[in-house]
């Protein structure tokens, strides 16, 4: 009667809430990275933002689709004769590249950011009026 996610919500609520948690974490990672790097220029912000976008794709799109059993995992493709192997391979490639490349870019940006303050995108405004 119920589809796989709702049936899992009845039997195992923790496993059913995990995709929701992953979606929230991926989107908040993207939001925080954008807020952190929107005024900076240089490679730190670019690396951090690239990694955050890739991780948001991976955590908020690909992993919940796999957990909802919309997508067929590449290891289970022999058990689904009606599934298209090319499409499954494409989603598998997207998952692998977005997760691993996302962590690589995000880690590189965070390691660069931890070395010092990044330069600003626009010039600071000076004023003779004491704030």
């Amino acid at each position: 009667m119920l589809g796989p996610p709702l049936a899992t919500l009845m039997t195992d609520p923790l496993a059913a809430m995990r995709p929701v948690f992953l979606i929230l974490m991926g989107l908040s990672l993207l939001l925080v990275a954008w807020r952190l790097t929107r005024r900076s220029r240089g490679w730190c912000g670019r690396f951090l933002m690239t990694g955050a976008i890739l991780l948001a794709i991976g955590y908020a799109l690909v992993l919940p689709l796999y957990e909802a059993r919309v997508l067929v995992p590449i290891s289970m493709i022999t058990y689904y004769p009606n599934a298209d192997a090319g499409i499954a391979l494409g989603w598998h490639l997207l998952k692998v590249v977005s997760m691993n490349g996302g962590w690589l870019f995000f880690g590189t940006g965070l390691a660069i950011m931890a070395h010092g303050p990044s330069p600003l995108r626009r010039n600071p405004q000076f004023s003779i009026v004491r704030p």
Partner: protein
Amino acid sequence: MNPVLFEIFVNQALVLDLFGVIGLGLVAFGAIRLAARFGSINARMMTWGALALILGRVGILAYGAIVTPSNFMEFDPTLLSVGKNLPIGLMTLGLGMLVVGFWSHERDLSEAAPDGV
């Protein structure tokens, strides 16, 4: 498909898994350096989150390398369940800790200097 590309991307995905673990190590390195610079609880939380992520990721890779369909029946089912679910829980909690620490760090920075980092 090209067999080399098949080995790289599909069969074991060794190179890309290595990239992911190296990236998590860079996240931990940056978080440790931030904790040393700022001395805040946020960067320490990011460090613990990154460590949990590394442990979980290596646990998942080790489970996939050790447990195969041929020797699946030789292990205790409880041990298999723990070995499969513990890295997933570690990765979930580690991701949450990393995001919370990252958010708090960004909030502290924007409160200290609203015009930019």
